[in-house]
């Protein structure tokens, strides 16, 4: 079974901003379409390693970026 986390956002613009800031912090992320079974206001989300969730939360809060939520997914 594969486990990963997704950062759900309101718009691709926010995803791009988070991706850029995570890059600067050395945290890996990948923009992917939102998995079908999740509800989101945006078609895209950022896939991250669950181990990086706290770092991602820190970056998002520090830069005052509005996100929807972060979910851990097992599939």
């Amino acid at each position, binding site marked *: 079974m594969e486990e990963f986390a997704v950062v759900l956002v*309101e*718009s*691709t*613009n*926010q*995803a*791009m*901003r988070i*991706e*850029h800031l995570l890059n600067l912090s050395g945290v890996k992320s990948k*923009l*992917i*379409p*939102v998995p079908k079974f999740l509800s989101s*206001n*945006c*078609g*895209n989300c950022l896939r991250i390693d669950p181990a990086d969730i706290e770092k991602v939360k820190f970056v998002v809060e520090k*830069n*005052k*970026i*509005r996100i929807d939520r972060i979910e851990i997914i097992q599939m």
Partner: protein
Amino acid sequence: MNRIIYFDNAATSWPKPPQMIEAMRQFNGEIGANSGRSGHQLSVQSARIVYDTRQRLADIFNLRDPLRVAFTLNVTESLNLALLGLLKPGDHVITTSMEHNAVMRPLRYLESRGVELTILSCIPNGVLDPDDLKKFMKPNSKLVVINHASNVIGTIQPIRDIGRFARENGLLTLIDTAQTAGAYPINMEKDFIDLLAFTGHKSLFGPMGTGGLLIGERVNAEQLNPLKRGGTGSYSEFEEQPDFLPDKFESGTLNIIGLAGLNASLEWIQSTCIEIIRVHEKVLCQQLINGLQNIPGIKVFGSGDANLQTAVVSFTIDGFDNARVGELLDERYGVLCRTGLHCSPSTHKTIQTFPHGTIRFSLGYFNSKIEIDDALLFLKEIIGKRQ
């Protein structure tokens, strides 16, 4: 093609950096997808270009959050978004007599809808005295809107002093950077700018159809109404406009091929350095002013000091029709300039050249000293042949 001397950079800069043209070719040929609409790899690449462009603009103008950059088609749209989006009947707005019609026309419209308008005179030299703001400020004053540099005579306004005063007195500032973005260092924080309207195709050396509004932290985006509403790729299940930046102001597909070009031009500007561009243009501008002042019969408008203006120089020749001089320069010598009122009747009234206007040479980074020497020679020939 015969030799062209392009002195119309205030209308649009030309030529453009080759990197701009290559980026646009590459976007069309290899990417082409819409950003923020789909999740596939080409759409993501497209979204990344759009984001990179926001980030560069935020870096160049010192705005902390690149999501507060809203793209438009040009500075006129940016100014309309800021003015029509912010001002409501009963609000008071202050501007100057040096404005372009991109500011004057929306303001005159708003005035007819109950917005109070004060136009501060900049007679005789085109510079606003920040103390005048104090004299004309009212309890309902909301916004000061200023053309950073005149598109007719290049006069640079003391925006930092104006911004400081505005901030101390609770007013917002909107700066029209059509003539300065890319040609003169601008820092939203240090210059106390709340709203910065720019166009991509002038001194930022991007393609036409690119522009934007940088929205400072003091502007409550909730109180800024969008010019248009529609699809944003976000909140698709709702029929109401999203309230967050930049989606609130960016309905409809963006000019992404244009932004790809602008992004490359901004990268070129960052590596060239705005301070270097400014010095080059300043040297050329002073050479042109001095040369024109030495030709009998020519009257140069503006300060006469390149330190106080951008590389836009307006002049008239005694006994000559401006349009005819422009025509001769173009047809006989390949010197391209603009004559007339330059969409700024108020400026021409201020410098007392209304309604005939002036001949305007506007220089850019790609002009050279030799071109200025030659153009001066051609003007002497035109005047000499007549006598």
